[in-house]
């Protein structure tokens, strides 16, 4: 399927939980954040449940009538470029990718903006895990 994630990308997304939960400073900064958001890589959806700064679960879709607060969507290729150790211009930030037209941000963005530093670190966790 076009845009489906590779096994490697799938593994990197699931590993976000371990990377985040193992980072005591990140968990501390996110301690007021509890939300469920959708992370899409191409055609593959993941529901990420955050509870008090820890990643409670990352579940792979497809989903039927499952609620989420906001959705972060990009192609699998765009996420991989985002996770490169030194990303190219335009792929170095979620909103840079949005402006470039390779990512979208939908839903209730207020919780995303409220915890933006923490959540940016969560979605960038595969970059740090590779470093």
């Amino acid at each position, binding site marked *: 399927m076009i845009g489906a994630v590779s096994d490697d990308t799938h593994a990197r997304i699931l590993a976000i939980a371990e990377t985040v939960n193992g980072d005591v400073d990140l968990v501390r900064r996110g301690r007021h954040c509890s939300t469920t958001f959708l992370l899409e890589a191409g055609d593959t959806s993941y529901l990420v449940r955050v509870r008090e700064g820890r990643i409670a679960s990352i579940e792979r879709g497809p989903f039927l009538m499952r609620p989420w607060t906001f959705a972060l969507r990009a192609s699998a290729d765009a996420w991989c470029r985002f996770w490169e150790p*030194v*990303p190219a*211009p*335009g792929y*170095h*930030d*979620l*909103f*840079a990718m*949005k*402006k*470039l037209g390779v990512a979208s941000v939908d839903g209730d*963005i*207020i919780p995303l*903006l*409220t915890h*933006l*530093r923490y959540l*940016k670190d969560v979605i960038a966790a595969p970059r740090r895990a590779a470093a």
Partner: protein
Amino acid sequence: MADPEPRAPLEPIVGRYLRLTLGGRPCRVYFEEAGQGIPLVCLHTAGADNRQYRHLLNDAGITRDYRVLAFDMPWHGKSLPPLGWQDEEYRLTTAGYIETILTFCDAMGLERPVLLGCSIGGKIVLELARLHPDRFCALIGVESAAYQPPWYDDTGFLHRPDLHGGEVAGALMAGLIAPQSPSETRWDTLWGYMQGGPGVFKGDLWFYRVDGDFRDRVGEIDTSRCPLYLLTGEYDFSCTPDDTRATAEKIPGARFTVMREIGHFPMSENPAQFRKYLAPVLDEIRAARRG
């Protein structure tokens, strides 16, 4: 009795307050300066203050020939908002911004200074190039464009009591810094954003996003009256190199350079990298002035 010599490194920067009348109201404007020679007035970005120029003010290679001055706009840094601010919504306008810059230069007795502005400062440089080229010796627009296509159409989230303005501004601006920028200067830059007053960043963006659309007029700029340099970082997705290029193409004689490994805050996020691009411009301005 003479003051004792300091026993720790003392920076050459001196900060003072200047009493100006802006928009018909008294304003106490803070500025810092260092060096001697050609005046070089520096304008900070939206929602920030003159600390962004602390590395330039401390650069002996530049302050040897330039008197570097950087002020905090009212509402920013150590410049308080004007009397009555508590009942009004702050909005930076093109006219108000021009008045602030020209009034500061006049009050300080600066004769044809070089003006360097970044982001909103880079944008106002374009309008000064059009309207007041004879007031300046050279103009340097950093992260400057007549227009930047927006990636959001509502800045309300920047000023609402249930969302910490400093937290969101810092996290938002983090993305505009190049990945190569050193940790220390990256976080210094973000600290400035985290400290802005409520609604000030949003008010500055009114100029950046709405009032400061100069697409219809930058073609009138005559660079033979005042040279115009445009420097934009490759990682800036707010004002992209393409945005600046589109502006430069409308202005005969404008000198445009893309800066590698730099984002939206060159002087602040990576001073050493910015210097590689700024120093040759300042050398050229100095040579032209001497000639």
